[in-house]
C-alpha cells in the first residue's frame, strides 16, 4: 500500500470567467518514509499540487488515494480530521498565531484532536525539544527570529506525530544558515520515519530530498531519484 497514489490529477481555477489550468494529469505514488521534493519555477503548479496532496484544496479531476482511501469523496470536516491526524504543514510565511506563545502555537493541532485526552503537555514539550526550542517555549511568536519561527512551525507540524509533513518553501523567508537548519531538521524527521514532501523552486534545496518531482506549466516533467543527496549540516544534529 502506497501512502499516496494520484492518477490524472487535475486542477482548474475559474476566476471571473477566466479558466486557468494549474495542474494537469499528474500521476505518481509516494511511499511511506520517502523524502520527496516537488520542484519547479514560480507558476509551475507545485504549490497547487501540494495543497491538493495536503487536503487543503480539492482536485477538479482525477483520483487521490491516501492510504488507499479515496479522499476526493470526503466532506470538508472529514478532510479536516485527516489533516489533523495524518498531515503536518510547514509554510513559507510560518503562519504562527500572533501574540501567542511558542507552547500554545505548537499545541494548536492537539486542540482539534477529537480523541485527545490528557498528555498534551508531554507531546508539546517533546515537539518543542525536537526542534531545540525548549529555552524559548514561553516566548511570544513575535519575539522570535525567522529561523526560530520556522522551527516552531515544524514543531507544530510534528506534534500530532503525522504520517506526512508538507513543507511549502520552508526556507524561502530565511537566511541560508537558518534555512539549512530547517532542512537538517526535515532530514532528521525523515530519518526517524516521517514522510516529507518539500516544495521548492531551488535545485540546491531540492537536492536534500531523496527524490525530485519536477514540474512545469502544471505538468510533471520529471520524476528522478537524487543520486548525490545533500545532507544539511553534516556531522551536526538539531534533533534530540
Amino acid at each position, binding site marked *: 500500500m502506497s501512502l499516496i497514489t494520484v492518477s490524472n490529477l487535475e486542477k482548474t481555477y475559474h476566476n471571473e470567467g477566466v479558466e486557468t489550468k494549474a495542474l494537469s494529469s499528474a500521476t505518481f505514488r509516494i511511499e511511506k518514509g520517502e523524502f520527496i521534493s516537488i520542484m519547479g519555477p514560480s507558476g509551475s503548479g507545485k504549490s497547487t499540487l501540494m*495543497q491538493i496532496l*495536503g487536503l*487543503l*484544496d480539492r482536485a477538479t479531476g482525477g483520483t487521490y488515494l491516501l492510504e488507499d482511501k479515496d479522499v476526493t469523496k470526503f466532506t*470538508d*470536516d472529514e478532510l*479536516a*480530521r485527516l*489533516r*489533523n*491526524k495524518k498531515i503536518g*504543514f510547514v*509554510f513559507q*510565511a510560518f*503562519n504562527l*498565531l500572533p*501574540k*501567542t506563545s511558542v507552547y500554545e502555537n505548537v499545541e*494548536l*493541532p492537539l*486542540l*482539534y*484532536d*477529537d480523541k*485527545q485526552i490528557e498528555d498534551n503537555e508531554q507531546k508539546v514539550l517533546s515537539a518543542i525539544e525536537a526542534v531545540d526550542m525548549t529555552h524559548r517555549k514561553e516566548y511570544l511568536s513575535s519575539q522570535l527570529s525567522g529561523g526560530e519561527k520556522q522551527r516552531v512551525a515544524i514543531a*507544530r507540524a510534528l506534534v*500530532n506525530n503525522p504520517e506526512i509533513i508538507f513543507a511549502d518553501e520552508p526556507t524561502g523567508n530565511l537566511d541560508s544558515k537558518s534555512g539549512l537548519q530547517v532542512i537538517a531538521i526535515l532530514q532528521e524527521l525523515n530519518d526517524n520515519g516521517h514522510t516529507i514532501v518539500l516544495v521548492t523552486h531551488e535545485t540546491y534545496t531540492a537536492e536534500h530530498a531523496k527524490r525530485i518531482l519536477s514540474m512545469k506549466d502544471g505538468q510533471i516533467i520529471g520524476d528522478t531519484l537524487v543520486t548525490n543527496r545533500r545532507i544539511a549540516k553534516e556531522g551536526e544534529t538539531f534533533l534530540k
Partner: protein
Amino acid sequence: MKLSDPLKISYRTLSASKLRFFLTVLGVVIGVASVILVMAIGASAQKLVLSQIENVGSNLIAILPGASEEKGPPASVLGVVTTSLTYDDLEALRVRRNVPHLSAVSGYVTGTGTAEFQSTSLEASFQGVSPDLIGIENIHLASGRFFFPEEEMDLSRVMVLGATRAKELFADRNPIGETVTLKKISFKVIGVLEERGSAAFSSPDDLIYVPLGTAQKLLLGINYLNFARAKIDNPLNIERSIADMSILLRKRHDMKDNEESDFSIRSTEAALGILTTITDILKYFLLAIASISLLVGGVGIMNSMLISVSQRVREVGLRKAVGAQKNHIILQFLIESSFITIVGGIIGIVCGVLVAYLASIILIKLGYDWQFLVPLSSLAIGFSVSFIIGIVFGLYPAIKASRISPMEALRYE
C-alpha cells in the same frame, strides 16, 4: 476539544483589541441597562399608581358617564365627553331606599382657569365637588371649613384651596376670608387643605375646590357631571350597591332591557384592574423601545465580529489547516460573541439597577411615595436576551468564518 480552549482563545483575541471590545460591550451595556431601568422604573411607577388608588380605600365606587367594555377603560378616560350623568342622578343616588348601603357620594366636574389674588396670578386646575368629598377622599382641613351641604348647588362663590395653591397665592398670609378671582369671578376662601403629597397623575395639593353647582354653572357652563364617586358602608356591600346603582340609573335614563348602559360603575378594585392593564401596556411599550437599544447593541456585536473574522482570515485558515472543523470555528466565534454579551449583560444589569436606585432616591427626595423595585424577571430577561443576542448576532459571522477555505486563507495577505 476542551471547552477551556476556545475560552482561552477568546480571551486572548478580545484582550488583543481592547478598544473594540470595550465599545462593543458598551453597546450591550446600554441596551441591557435600559431594559432593566425601564422595567424597574415601570414596576415602581405602577406600584405608586396602584398604591395611591388603594390608599383611597377599597370601599369606593366610581360612576362614569359613557358605556365601556367590561375590562377596558371607560369612554371618559379616553377623552370622550359624555353628558349622560347629571346632578339629578346624584340626588337620586342619595335617596336611601335607592342605594341603602351608600354612605356618601360626590359629583365631580373639572376645569382650569386663571386664579388671581392681588398681584399674584396663576393657571390652576379646579374641581367642582360635593360637600361629601371630605369623607370620600379622606382629606383634612388645615384651616377654615369645607362646603356646607346647602352650598353644593346654590352657586355660592366660596373656595377651598389645596396646600400648594394656598402657599403660591398667599405665601405666609392667612387665606381664610380673602377674595380670589377664578376665571374673573370673585370667590371667598373658606378653607385650606392639609398637604396630601403627590398622587399618580395630579396633585390634590395643586387643586382649587369649589362647590359643584358653582363650577358647573358659573365656571364651566355645563349641566352634567364628569364623574361621581360614592363611598359604601362596607366593602362586602360593593357588589350589591353597584347593582342597585345600575338599576336606578338605567331606570332614570329610560334604558330598554337589551340596551347598553350609558354609564359605567366601577369599584376601586375594578379600577385597580384597569389601571394595572393600562400601566402594563405602558410598561411593555417602554420595554419594547428599550429593547431597540439592545437590538442596536446586537448589530454592534455583529459588526465587531465581522471585522474580527476579516482580520483573522489567516488565523482561521491555519486552524483549519491543522484540523479545525467547521463546528470548532463556529463555536470559537460564538463563544467570543457570547462572552461580549455576558460581560455586557452583567455590567448592564449593575448599571441599570444603580440608575434605577439613583432615580428612586431623587424621586423620593421630590416627595413621591416611590419604592425602589427591581423585578427579578427584568434581570432574567436582561441577561437571557443579551445572551441570545450574542448567539443570534454572532452566528452569521461565525458561519462566515467557518466557510473560509484554508487554502485561500493561507494565501490571504
